C-alpha cells in the first residue's frame, strides 16, 4: 500500500537498497496454483529483481543462499489477478463533444492516490485495464496499469517497446452510447458512425504508407486518426462494451470488416451467441452480477455465461467494472461462475492468464513461471471459498498489501477513512489522536 514517503526514504537510507528488489526472496510451504502446470501441494516460489526465478515443489527447488525466506505454510499462492475492465483511479475520458474520441488518453487523468487503487490491491488485483466509460461509441484510449505502490500515475504504467504507455481502445454499442446528436440515436446509426471513422483511418494509414517516410508526403498529424491507426495495425486492442446478442454480433462483424483485434466486454447475452463468439476466435471478458436486469440490455444476463463460453471453446476472463462490482470481490466473480457450471480450472485461468492474454501481457503476467513478473497473491485457503481471506498481494517482488498491517487492513474491510484519497495520512492522524 501507499506508504508515507518519508518512511520509505528512511528505509532506503537504512538498508541502502529498495527492500525486496536486490536480494532473492523465497516463499515456502504454500500450495501453489501456478495456472500454467499442475498445482504444487508444498511449493517454493523464488523471486529476484522483481521476477520469478524459480517455482516448483519443496525439495527439488533450489533456494538461493542468502534469500529472505517467507514461511507460508498452509497458505495458497495464486498469480496476481488481472482485471480486464476497471474504473478505479478517478480518471476522466471523452467529453460530450463527439461520439468517437480516439485521441483521448485516459492515463493522463488518473489519480494514483485514489483509495480504490489500494482497495484493488487488497482484492488481489495486480494488473488492471483502466477504461473510460460506455457513454460513447469510442470513449478513448485505455491504460493497462500495474498496481504498484505509487503516488503518481507514472509509477503505475506499463511501457510498450516504444516507451509509450500500454493500453487498448474503449468502444461501446447498445443503449449507453445512444444519446442526442452528435451521438447516434439507433443501433444502425451507431455502426455507421463507427464504420465512417474506420474508413477515414484506413485512408489516413494508406497515406502514411504511400509517403514511405518522406516528411513532405506525410499527411498532417491527426491525433484522432493516429489512435485509430494503432487499432487497425493491431497495436491497440479494442475493448468493446456490449450486452445484447445482436450487438455482440455487430462487434464481430465490424472487427472482421476492419481487421481490428477485439475483446468483448460484459457480454450479457454470451449464452445466446457463445458458438458465434468462439467461431470468430474472439475473447470475452464477462461481468458476474447478482441478478439480471437493472437495464434492459442486461435483462437476460446469467451466472452461466462463463460456462457457456467455456463449453463453446472461447477464451473467457472476468472483470470487476469497479464500481459496478468491488475490486475486493473479484475472486467471487470466478467462484459464482463455477457455481453456475464453469470449470474450476477455467475460472482460475479466467482471473489471471485469460486476462493477461486479453491485454497482450501474457509474457509478463498471468501465471507463475520463471521469468515472469513476481506478481502474486497469498490466500488463507482455497481461492473459490468465501471463507478464504486474501492475506498478501505482491507486485514485482514488492509487497503492496498485508492484511496483518492495520493501515492496509482498513482498505481490505473498509471503515472510517477507508475511502479518502490520502487515507494513510488520515489514518496516521487517527492513530496519533487515539494515542494521546
Amino acid at each position: 500500500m501507499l506508504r508515507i514517503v518519508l518512511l520509505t526514504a528512511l528505509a532506503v537510507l537504512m538498508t541502502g537498497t529498495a527492500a525486496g528488489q536486490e536480494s532473492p526472496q523465497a516463499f515456502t510451504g504454500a500450495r501453489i496454483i501456478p495456472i500454467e502446470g499442475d498445482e504444487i501441494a508444498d511449493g517454493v516460489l523464488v523471486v529476484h529483481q522483481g521476477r520469478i526465478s524459480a517455482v516448483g515443489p519443496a525439495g527439488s527447488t533450489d533456494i538461493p543462499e542468502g534469500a529472505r525466506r517467507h514461511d507460508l505454510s498452509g497458505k495458497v499462492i495464486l498469480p496476481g489477478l488481472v482485471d480486464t475492465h476497471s474504473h478505479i483511479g478517478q480518471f476522466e475520458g471523452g467529453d460530450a463533444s463527439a461520439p468517437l474520441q480516439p485521441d483521448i488518453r485516459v492515463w493522463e487523468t488518473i489519480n494514483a492516490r485514489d483509495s480504490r487503487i489500494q482497495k484493488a490491491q487488497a482484492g488481489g488485483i495486480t494488473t488492471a485495464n483502466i477504461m473510460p466509460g460506455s457513454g460513447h461509441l469510442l470513449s478513448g484510449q485505455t491504460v493497462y496499469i500495474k498496481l504498484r505502490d505509487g503516488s503518481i500515475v507514472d509509477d503505475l504504467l506499463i511501457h510498450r517497446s516504444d516507451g509509450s504507455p500500454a493500453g487498448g481502445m474503449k468502444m461501446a454499442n447498445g443503449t449507453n452510447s445512444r444519446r442526442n446528436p452528435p451521438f447516434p440515436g439507433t443501433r444502425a446509426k451507431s455502426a455507421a458512425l463507427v464504420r465512417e471513422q474506420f474508413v477515414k483511418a484506413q485512408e489516413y494509414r494508406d497515406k502514411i504508407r504511400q509517403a514511405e517516410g518522406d516528411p513532405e508526403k506525410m499527411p498532417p498529424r491527426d491525433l484522432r486518426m493516429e489512435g485509430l491507426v494503432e487499432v487497425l495495425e493491431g497495436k491497440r486492442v479494442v475493448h468493446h462494451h456490449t450486452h445484447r446478442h445482436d450487438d455482440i454480433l455487430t462487434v464481430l462483424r465490424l472487427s472482421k470488416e476492419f481487421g481490428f483485434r477485439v475483446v468483448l466486454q460484459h457480454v450479457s447475452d454470451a449464452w445466446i451467441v457463445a458458438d458465434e463468439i468462439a467461431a470468430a476466435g474472439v475473447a470475452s471478458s464477462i461481468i458476474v452480477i447478482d441478478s439480471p436486469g437493472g437495464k434492459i440490455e442486461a435483462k437476460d444476463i446469467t451466472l452461466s455465461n462463463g460456462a457457456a463460453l467455456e463449453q463453446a471453446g472461447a477464451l473467457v476472463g472476468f472483470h470487476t467494472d469497479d464500481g459496478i462490482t468491488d475490486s475486493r470481490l473479484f475472486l467471487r466473480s470466478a467462484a459464482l461462475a463455477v457455481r453456475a457450471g464453469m470449470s474450476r480450472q477455467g475460472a482460475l485461468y479466467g482471473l489471471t492468464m485469460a486476462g493477461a492474454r486479453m491485454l497482450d501481457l501474457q509474457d509478463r503476467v498471468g501465471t507463475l513461471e520463471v521469468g515472469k513478473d513476481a506478481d502474486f497473491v497469498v490466500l488463507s485457503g482455497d481461492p473459490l471459498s468465501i471463507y478464504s481471506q486474501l492475506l498478501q498481494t505482491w507486485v514485482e517482488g514488492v509487497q503492496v498489501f498485508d492484511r496483518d498491517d492495520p493501515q492496509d487492513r482498513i482498505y481490505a474491510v473498509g471503515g472510517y477513512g477507508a475511502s479518502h484519497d490520502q487515507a494513510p495520512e488520515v489514518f496516521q492522524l487517527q492513530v496519533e489522536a487515539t494515542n494521546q
Partner: protein
Amino acid sequence: MRIPFRAHFALIFVLLAGLPLHAQLAVQAETLHTMAGPSIQNGVVLIQQGKVAQLGPATDVGIPQGYQVLRAKVVTPGLIDAHTVVGLAGHLNQPHDQDQLERSSPVQPELRAIDAYNARERLVEYLRGYGITTIHTGHGPGALISGQTMIAKIWGEHVEEAVIKPSAMLAATLGDSARGASNKPPGTRAKMMAMLRSEFIQAQEYLRKRDNAEEGKKPARDLHREALGRVLKGEMPLMVTAQRVPELLAAIRLAKEFGFRLVLDGAAEAHMILDEIRESGYPVILHPPMMRHFGEGENATFEAAARLKAAGIPFALQSGFESYVPKTRVVLFEAAWAAANGLSFEDALASITIDAARLLGIDDRLGSLQVGKDGDLALFDGDPFEYTSHCVGVVIEGQLVSKTKN
C-alpha cells in the same frame, strides 16, 4: 437454456397441480438448521397442512406412509429478506416497472405497498430460487417519507395470495437521496428534520381531534395523517433509511421525541456509534454487507454485521435497494459475506431467518423450524454460504415451489 418467465411459471404450476393441495411432505437433511436450538444431524421435518407437524433426528421421527420425501445435505428455514423493494421495483428498470418511489411530493405516508406489488415480477421469482421465501418489501428510499411497506411470501399469482402483513412499516429516508429536486423542499438535512417534526405534530393534532371529538364532529378522514398516526400509536414502526452518523442520531432523536417505534435501515456508519444505537433500544436492518463503499456509504465496513452482533444490537440483513445493475442483491449472498467477515455461521444464518422474523414481528409463524410454524424451507447441496454451493429446493407451506439448482 433459460426458460422464459411465463413458461417457467407454467412449469411450477404443473408441478404443483400434480400434488394434492397441502400435501404431506417430509424433508430429510444431513444437517438441519432449525434456528430454534442446535442443528440436528440427519434430521427430518414433517409438514402437514402447510405447518411443521414434527421434527427431530431421523432416529426419533419416522416418515409415515404417503408422504412426499425430499432429501438435501443442508436444510434451513425459508430465508427472510428483511428489506427489499422487489415486486414494486422490477428488473427492467424502466418507468413502467419502477413503483417503489413516487416523486410528486416528499412526504406520502398514505401510499400502500399492496397497491403496487407485482407478484409475477421476475426478480421475486429469482430471489426464491436462492431459498428466500419471505420478503419485507415496499416503498423504497429516496423520499423523506416514501410510503408503506408490506411482508409477503414469495408465491402466488397476485398480491392477495402473497401478502402476510399488508402494512408493515412506514419508509423514511434521511440523507442525500431525500433532497427535493430543483429547489423543492427538503433542500437540506436540517429541513428534512423540521419537516418530519412538523408532520408528526400535525398527525398528533389530527389523532387528538379524531379520538376526542364528539360523534358527528370528527374531522374529515385524512389518509396522510392516519398513516402517520399509526406510527404514533405504535401500530407500525418508522423505518428510517440513513447511512451517516448525523442522520442516524437525528432519527433516534425524532423517535424519542414522539415516542414511536423506530427501525434504523442501512446504517453504514452504525459501527461508529454502537453505544448510542444499543442504548436507544432500536433495531437495525443493516445494509447489505457487500454494499458499495461510495458516497454516504464511504465509511461502511464489511465487518459491520459482526460489530453490531458484538455490541448486542438486534439486527437483520437486507438486500436493500439498487438503482442500476444488479437490480437486486440476494440476501443469502449478503449473509454469506457477513459470515466471511467476522460474523459466526449461526449468527449470519439467524440474520436472514429468526432474527429477521423477530425484527419484522412475524416470528410467531416464521424464521425457525418448530412445530406449528409455517412449513417454509430452503434446501442446499452444501454450506449455504459457500460460493459454489447451490440452493436445490424451496418449500413454502409444504409445497415445493422451486427445484431448480441455483
